[in-house]
């Protein structure tokens, strides 16, 4: 299993991604815990999934 390194579009942190990654798979950035969707595989392209809002303190 070979791996590639990508940069998280949210936090610029390093993401180690293994080759077996598939289209539409959702990855979690270890730096900021964003959910990143694989929107293309060759070359690999990641897109941010929407953030979950907390609804507090009204």
């Amino acid at each position, binding site marked *: 299993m070979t791996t590639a390194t990508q940069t998280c579009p949210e936090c610029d942190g390093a993401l180690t991604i293994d080759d077996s990654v598939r289209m539409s798979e959702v990855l979690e950035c270890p730096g900021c815990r964003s959910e990143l969707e694989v929107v293309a595989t060759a070359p690999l392209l990641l897109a941010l999934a929407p953030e979950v*809002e*907390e*609804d*507090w*303190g*009204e």
Partner: protein
Amino acid sequence: MIRTAVFGAAGYIGGEVLRLLLGHPETEVTAAVSSRFPGKRVDSVHPNLRSATDLTFCDAEQVPECDVVLLATPHRSAMALVRQWASRTELLIDLSGDFRLKDADAYKHYYGVAHEAPELLDSFVPGIPELHRDELRTARLISVPGCMATAGLLALRPPAACGLIASRVLVDGRTGSSGSGATAGEGNLHAERSGAMRVFAPVAHRHEAEIAQHTGLDVRMTATGVEAVRGVQVVCHTELAPGADHRAVRAAYREAYADEPFIRMVAHKRGVYRYPEPKILLGSNFCDIGHAADEGSDRLVVIAALDNLVKGGAGNAVQCLNVRMGWPESYGLSFPGLHPM
């Protein structure tokens, strides 16, 4: 007796509205609406009301004619209820966020959805007796501000109105867990929320828009959940306008609030409780406000505290009702708070 109906009565704000209306000499509760608990006793959800009432919850469809409707439901659901009830009742008081911002675009920005009744936005009088007492006397639709917003706008309005504030204001809000309502969720589990210092909104908390609207200031708000069930505190950081000084600030507060029944200025040089602190306010309708100067600088720090469910919501609504009805403003709101607590 004035007949009232409370929507969202099984929630935290709804329960507090019930407590206050049941203890009020001029009101009775004719309907306490809950979709989850129709037919159940109100005190099965709010055990503090065990001795106060035998009322049971009812469905929204079963609400009888009444004089005053109070909405204590989440934002978005309030819009629909307003459409339905605005014309059927003498007075409607909305406690949700739906009619607080006058600008539908700001609503969209801060609440993430389009407003569904923008044409009604201008019909609502802000439920802030300290700023809108006269309009409230004849209001038919009242929108009560958010809990931290109330603390923030009451804290900042007097110096802002007198032109004493030069710059952007940073409002640091701290809130207890009842601020997020009675809905169980992972983050509100006792073992997770207990002892928290949870910065849930490092920037851009919704209430900043309300404070800005009522003060004309550039307001930026950060909010943290701290260990408490009830209680809200704001610490506001800003700078004095050129030529302004702390004496002028003090005068502005004195001028604005000297006769206000529920505002107290608190900035003491001695004692344990020198600045506003929520714990001694729990259950009371007071908003305590104090300010401090940073010697040899132009900084102004203003602190305010209140009980989010009382002056930050239900109590403020009842105060507005009292103003509207021409009753003494303290009717139903005489509990002073406890010490120690």
